[in-house]
């Protein structure tokens, strides 16, 4: 084969690859196109994985938490986090933690915890520990990690000697689910109100627009505060939880309604909607079968972007003492313990629930941005 023939062959090969790529794009379904575009956002993928881990932890928190979150021990108040060691006497061994050596500060009489190299507690998987009811149904006492005797406070303890890691895991269940349920409620409100307003237009649209403008012009936190202060203090925790969710979504539906409305407005002018109408499809069918699927991906991206607002809202309200209250455990409730600067200065691990809030919100923002870019695969 001469050089020229080689080059020619290479050219044909390249062309074939190109055509297959192009054909693939033409043949791909909308879902595939979205997925391909989404895959390019590395940060969004990583965030998605982190969020899956967070929700996984929230779902299985009873099992994953080393202790019962309400299990208190006066011996270990404000104990600092224990570090996991894997080397002992220069040799690699099963991971272990050191026990605490108690000292008292001669001036402030405060307890000081120091790691004690004499006490070694190896960490085991599937340890029998505090009994719990998994999902409030099945009784069990196996925990994912733990120590046989001694203590395992990987993120320290609070003022009553309760394990912070366990409390954060239980808090994740409340805090992250309030975001989902709140967004679900505001999505339904937004879909109905925004849908009607965008589909029918006219006076109704005008009124809805004014109401949305009005709700957006009110500072949300004072409004949330006022509404949640009206929840009766004798309500059981589960009702307070739903009360707060409803309050969050009553104020928060406007953004989604706006998105739904603008989508309806632009779609109802499209040819395929006109075609469906001319062939005698009912309004309901036009909306549910033709319009909703074509903006669903866009809506999902927007929903993802509005979950953080709900999570931050719950955290802020609970932090102020107007949202969820102990014994309910949420990240905001946990942060209430960190209100005093002196306490925080002495035991900074009390701020850790806040770090989890930031990570979760950050991930939702990255994921939402990636989804929003991917949602419209025909752009560019």
């Amino acid at each position, binding site marked *: 084969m001469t050089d020229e023939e080689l080059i020619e062959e290479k050219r044909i090969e390249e062309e074939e690859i190109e055509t297959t790529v192009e054909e693939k794009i033409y043949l791909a379904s909308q879902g595939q196109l979205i997925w391909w575009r989404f895959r390019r956002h590395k940060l969004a993928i990583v965030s998605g994985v982190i969020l899956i881990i967070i929700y996984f932890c929230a779902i299985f928190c009873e099992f994953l938490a080393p202790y019962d979150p309400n299990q208190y021990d006066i011996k270990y108040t404000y104990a600092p986090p224990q570090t996991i060691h894997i080397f002992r006497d220069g040799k690699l061994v099963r991971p272990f933690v050191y026990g605490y050596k108690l000292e008292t500060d001669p001036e402030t009489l405060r307890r000081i915890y120091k790691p004690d190299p004499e006490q070694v507690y190896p960490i085991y998987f599937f340890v029998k520990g505090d009994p719990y009811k998994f999902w409030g149904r099945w009784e069990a006492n196996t925990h994912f990690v733990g120590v046989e005797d001694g203590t395992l406070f990987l993120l320290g303890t609070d003022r009553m000697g309760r394990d912070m890691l366990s409390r954060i895991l239980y808090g994740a269940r409340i805090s992250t689910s309030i975001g989902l349920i709140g967004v679900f409620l505001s999505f339904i409100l937004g879909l109905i109100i925004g849908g009607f307003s965008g589909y029918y237009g006219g006076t109704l649209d005008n009124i809805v627009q004014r109401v949305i403008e009005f709700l957006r012009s009110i*500072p949300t936190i004072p409004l949330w505060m006022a509404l949640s*202060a009206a929840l009766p203090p004798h309500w059981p925790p589960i009702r307070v939880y739903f009360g707060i969710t409803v309050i969050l979504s009553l104020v928060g539906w406007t953004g989604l309604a706006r998105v739904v409305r603008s989508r309806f407005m632009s779609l109802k002018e499209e040819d395929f909607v006109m075609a469906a109408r001319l062939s005698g499809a009912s309004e309901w069918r036009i909306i549910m079968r033709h319009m909703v699927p074509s903006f669903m991906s866009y809506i999902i991206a927007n929903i993802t972007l509005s979950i953080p607002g709900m999570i931050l809202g719950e955290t802020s309200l609970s932090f102020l003492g107007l949202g969820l209250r102990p014994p309910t455990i949420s990240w905001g409730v946990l942060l209430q313990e960190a209100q005093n600067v002196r306490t925080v*200065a002495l035991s900074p691990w009390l701020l850790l629930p806040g770090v989890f809030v930031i990570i979760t919100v950050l991930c939702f923002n990255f994921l939402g941005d990636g989804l929003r870019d991917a949602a419209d695969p025909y752009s560019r």
Partner: protein
Amino acid sequence: MLSYILKRVLYIIPTLLLISIVSFIIIQLPPGDFLTSYIAQLSQTGEMVDEATIAALRHRYGLDQPYYIQYFKWMWNMLHGDFGQSFEWNRPVNQLIWERLGLTVAVSLFTMVLTWVIAFPIGIYSATHQYSIGDYTVTFLGYIGLATPSFMIALILMWIAYSVFGASVGGLFSPEYIEAPWSWAKFVDMLGHLWIPAIVIGTAGTAGLIRTLRANLLDELHKPYVVAARAKGLPERQLFWKYPMRIAIVPFISTVGWSLPGIISGETITAVVLSLPTTGPLLLRALQSQDMYLAGSFVMLLSILTVLGTLISDILLGWVDPRIRYEM
């Protein structure tokens, strides 16, 4: 322009009415009217309940009448400067709110100015140096700023100040000025304290503004007219400031409108953490003790402030961008 302003002002009226209705609902939300809790409070402390005073109060706020009459009475009283009675303080509400509201306005305005001053150069840098290390750093920090609740930033700042400098950063005044009457020295002292709350409250807004400005500028910078101007040999500096900048700045001004509710929201919660003498802590206490006239008035006045701020920004926007004033 005049008709645009007039229309915009007329639009405000239904909004203000809605705000007053929502505030009234907030006042009415807790079970029982406020007099029952007042009487309960009085008998708890062992005081004699004066039937005549109760009857007078009941009449003044129309508590024996249906809700809509109560609402009109409340509105009427308010238009005459009577916001109702705060039980916790046992004083008329309007004696309690004005100074705090003034400080809230001061903190919010200062925050807004600071937000602009920080966001403007950073946004421009970020757009003109797209994909540089500086751009990535700014974008990343911006995301974190958006994700961090303002009270968390306040806590962290206080923690650092306390453990590194051994000082507490709360409050708006040095101790010697807290009770002092207003003077130049007190004002200067306040300016010295103002920047910490301003940074805390402004972080989210600054991050949002940087993102908006960057996105707008990037959209403009690649448009054909910019390329054409560059090809004709217009100096880069002149080209940038005269054309893309002017267009990119329009949404920048309109963000004043929507960033104001955010700033006032953030101010409320940050003020609680940093114990600023503004509306936040008083609103929280009023809500905790169900002192509803005080709480309702706060929510209403804060909302009115925001709406007025939005109005001003809309008028500014109409002044900068002729398309907007002709559209209406």
